[in-house]
């Protein structure tokens, strides 16, 4: 493998490693993309145990399963220039440029109809506070 690509991929892997890890699901953008670019950067992927869940088994025998189209990137277009552009895109995302440029103010962050909506959601996702039966019931009945 030529060196410029390797160097570009190394820089990309470095940026990817500082990407936040998903909190909502096991499906991780960071892990998937690291697995994709590590071989290009001349690194080896860690060996992970393959977990098969009951969902996968059910999906295999489901006759109504919609086959997902496999969308691939053209390998020859993955040049060092393209990889550098990918790295730049990731850096733009990490620096929150769009959030800050398009700052929506508290009008949307503390919505009038439900001012603590996002705080409650984030606290719950990050396990900082848990809803109990009473607050849960209240949300279901009153809607907020």
């Amino acid at each position, binding site marked *: 493998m030529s060196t410029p690509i390797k160097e570009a991929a190394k820089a990309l892997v470095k940026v990817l490693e500082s990407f936040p890890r998903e909190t909502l699901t096991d499906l991780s953008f960071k892990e998937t993309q690291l697995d994709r670019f590590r071989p290009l950067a001349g690194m080896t992927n860690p060996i992970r145990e393959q977990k098969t869940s009951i969902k996968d088994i059910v999906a295999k025998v489901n006759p109504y399963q919609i086959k997902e189209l496999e969308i691939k*990137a053209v390998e020859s277009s993955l040049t060092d220039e393209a990889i550098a552009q*990918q790295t730049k895109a990731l850096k733009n995302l990490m620096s*929150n440029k769009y959030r800050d*440029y*398009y700052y929506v*103010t508290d009008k*949307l962050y503390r919505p009038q*109809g439900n001012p603590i909506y996002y705080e409650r959601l*984030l606290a719950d*996702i990050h396990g900082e506070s848990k809803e109990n039966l009473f607050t849960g019931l209240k949300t279901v009945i009153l809607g907020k």
Partner: protein
Amino acid sequence: MLRVKTLVPSLCRGVNTAATKTAHHVPTLSQINSSATLPNLQSPSQLAQSSHLETLLPTNEFTQIKPKTKRPLLSNSKYEDSTYQLPQYVQTIGEVVIATLRLDMDRIRAGPIAGSHYYAECKTQSLQFADEELSPSAKFFYEELSLPRTFTQWFQITALHTWILSVRMRAMPFKYGRNYQQKIIDRFFRDMELRLHDEMNVNSSRISDQYLKDYNSQLRGIVCSYDEGFATDDAVLATALWRNLFNAREEVDFVKLEAAVKYVRGQLYILSMMSDREFALGKFRFVPPQEIVERFTEEQIAKMKAVAKEEYEPKDGKKILPSQKSKLSYEN
């Protein structure tokens, strides 16, 4: 059949909690880099096209949308026809009824505005058929972002747009905002059921019910993960878009992901600039992805407020029909 990409909050509580040490909160003005500039003065569409990475999009006969009969945009009802005009005498009776019963028009308006007008707006963004040319906005999604031309992808794009609108609806007074959200989602699922039957030739109601249940659980995940991304940062929003809009595909192009984040943030910015009254009366249109959204200057904001005031402020001698009355603010 369909993989659920995200879990509902009640199911995913406690996942990876140990890894998060910092307190997470909605960004405040002081944390925002207010001198932030756009990384490049490009529209989302130009940004997506600027990528050097090529993506191969296979086509699959089986997943193409080739209906024998096409459904109308909303319904066959004459009331939802864009050319239909209510007869004058019916209008007069209606106005009298509204005035005498003192009906709450903000509540009643939720059906026609959110359920029909705004839903149509969301639906047309990515509507496509195999034998037809793509509309400019659909071109952005299917060609420039390299998404497959399938029904599930249409659902994902439409769900993204309904979510964008529901963020703004949340900022309306609770009673009205919730009603608007309910109407748009009800319409979304009703329309999907009809589309599955008429356009995708799913003739068994057992199968279509199963699909709809799957879409429903996907929608919960979509709303939860996009909300998280919206309230935290661009990287989290990007991963949420990758999991849902990009179907968690491995060989994704990050430039296209960035273009999608730019598109979403731009729409939300425009929505945040609209007053409740303007939004509730259906004045919002999605900004086409081929256009650049720039931050408004102080003068522009003042001008917009003046125009809204001129239009909605009650004045002596200015007659407002009972059906056009609204209690929502036109100044926020």
